[in-house]
């Protein structure tokens, strides 16, 4: 993402319009610097060289706007939308943000209502509620870790989060959610209607937390990563070997600090 932001700083002020020749250059630079395809190679037909995907924004815009790299297209009041980086996008592109700082920034700042999306903004604003979803997941995992029988519980599945956390998305309900998950593990009770969209959202968030190193995959479980030595060390393993030395290496303190810094309280 740092490389992508760096490329985008070079094209700030350009129109997203696919007829703008700079967009082709931008796409080439993005692919060269990140090693990723930013536009799937789909053509109308073998004989027509026209990519139905349009510009890179159509394909990756959501990623870039949700992570506060660029401003969404619909922020333009008049005229053609232009590539405009946010202050964070500028800082990232210009090399002021380390990998660790990047992950911590995203975890702390992603918030509902998310201003980049009109529908999300409207829904959460009208409901008069706010949520920091990544912090919310970490809080649930921490609550599970602190509950009896201890750190063996400090994991969650996307199914559990979809069933118990999603319907009660509030930082005030962490205790209730953790209790429900533990009860469910002892005696499965509640079931819910499957929603592909909800599961996908939760999986995306869990995936991000794992990439960021706050959690890790243990099969289908996502465990709180309590050690800097990731991913071989599970929370359970860490508990058994807990010494002063290991405590120093723990990311638990980092996670607690992160939650505190996000402003929602640990």
């Amino acid at each position: 993402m740092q490389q992508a932001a760096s490329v985008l700083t070079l094209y700030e002020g350009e129109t997203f319009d696919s007829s703008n020749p700079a967009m082709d250059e931008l796409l080439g630079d993005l692919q060269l610097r990140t090693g990723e395809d930013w536009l799937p190679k789909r053509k109308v037909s073998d004989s027509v060289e026209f990519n139905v995907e349009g510009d890179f924004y159509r394909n990756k815009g959501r990623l870039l706007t949700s992570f506060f790299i660029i401003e969404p297209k619909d922020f333009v009041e008049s005229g053609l939308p232009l590539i405009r980086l946010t202050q964070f996008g500028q800082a990232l592109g210009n090399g002021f943000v380390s990998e660790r700082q990047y992950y911590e920034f995203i975890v702390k700042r992603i918030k509902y209502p998310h201003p980049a999306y009109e529908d999300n903004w409207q829904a959460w604003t009208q409901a008069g509620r706010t949520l920091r979803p990544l912090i919310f997941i970490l809080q649930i995992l921490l609550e599970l870790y602190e509950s009896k029988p201890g750190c063996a519980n400090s994991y969650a599945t996307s199914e559990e989060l979809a069933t118990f956390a999603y319907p009660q998305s509030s930082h005030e309900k962490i205790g209730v959610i953790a209790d429900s998950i533990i009860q469910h593990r002892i005696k499965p009770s509640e079931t819910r209607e499957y929603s592909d969209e909800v599961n996908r959202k939760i999986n995306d968030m869990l995936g991000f937390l794992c990439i960021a190193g706050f959690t890790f995959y243990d099969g289908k479980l996502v465990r709180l990563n309590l050690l800097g030595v990731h991913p071989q060390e599970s929370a359970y393993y860490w508990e058994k070997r807990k010494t002063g030395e290991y405590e120093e290496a723990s990311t638990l303190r980092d996670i607690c600090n992160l939650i505190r810094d996000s402003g929602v309280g640990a």
Partner: protein
Amino acid sequence: MGQRVDALRELSSYPVPSSKYWSIKSAQEAALRCIAEGDCVVLYGPPGTGKTKLALDLIHELETRMKVVHELVQFHPKFGYEDFMEGYRPDGKGGFTLVDGVFKTFCSKASADKDALYVFLIDEFNRAELSTTLGEVLLLIEDRNQRMAKTAHSGSSIQLPPNLIILGTMNTADKTIAIMDYALRRRFKFIPVWPDYEVMKNWLTRVGFVDLGISIEEYCRAAFALNKRITSNPLMNKHMQIGHAMFVPKKRGTITRSDVGDVFRYTILPQLETYCGFGREDELKKILNANICEKMKNGQEILDDDIFGLIKTLSSDQASDGIF
């Protein structure tokens, strides 16, 4: 939507340690560091940024620390190897005699006086044909204590004394450092000198404004905004900025409205017109305003009010926020 925009900007705020705007002091410090290492230095930048003054200030600064001897020459297209190193000159009797050039003579003096620092100051460094003029100096600058060369005309040996440095200044608005070959470039330390608005402000404060209708700070902000427009214009670049000295009327006594008008009318506007190319009012409009461009196009007189209208617009440009 305004709420969404504000919310996104708040959530994505990430203040970074912003470097203060460039200052001449930092260039001076950099140059002194290079000189202390025995490097030859070229100060380069747009016209009116005080490069020659800075070079002389550097010599004065060095004089407070040690004995300094300096010689100033200005390069120009007729200045060649014969003037710089050595060459045959008519002896007045129908023959020719070999005469040492200004640099070779300076080298001899430096070799004989090891206790002093010898600074050879070359103004307008890039106006001569450099590879031809400098000759053997290119070889000698590197490993100056070990290398020795024979000069082209007399075949005499020459070595660059360790107590001699070359300090050059060059204007990059019309000739960039790209005209120099790489071999030459790597032998000098190139230190940029950009407009310094703090220096401009202090200078104007010392001189004083009378009935201008704008403050000194507003005038400096206008200068900054104008240069910002120049820098971001695709036809121009940072080397075509207007140096801070060009905004200051050269006169005794306090500065009046017509003094500033004259600076714009007779110095800055013609310079910008040349940069854009004659007849390119469309480009000029992006830097100035429609009113002045129309008058320039039609050859009409540009009044003080026109100039101050432009200055007012420029000074309120957000681009200049936080320059002081």
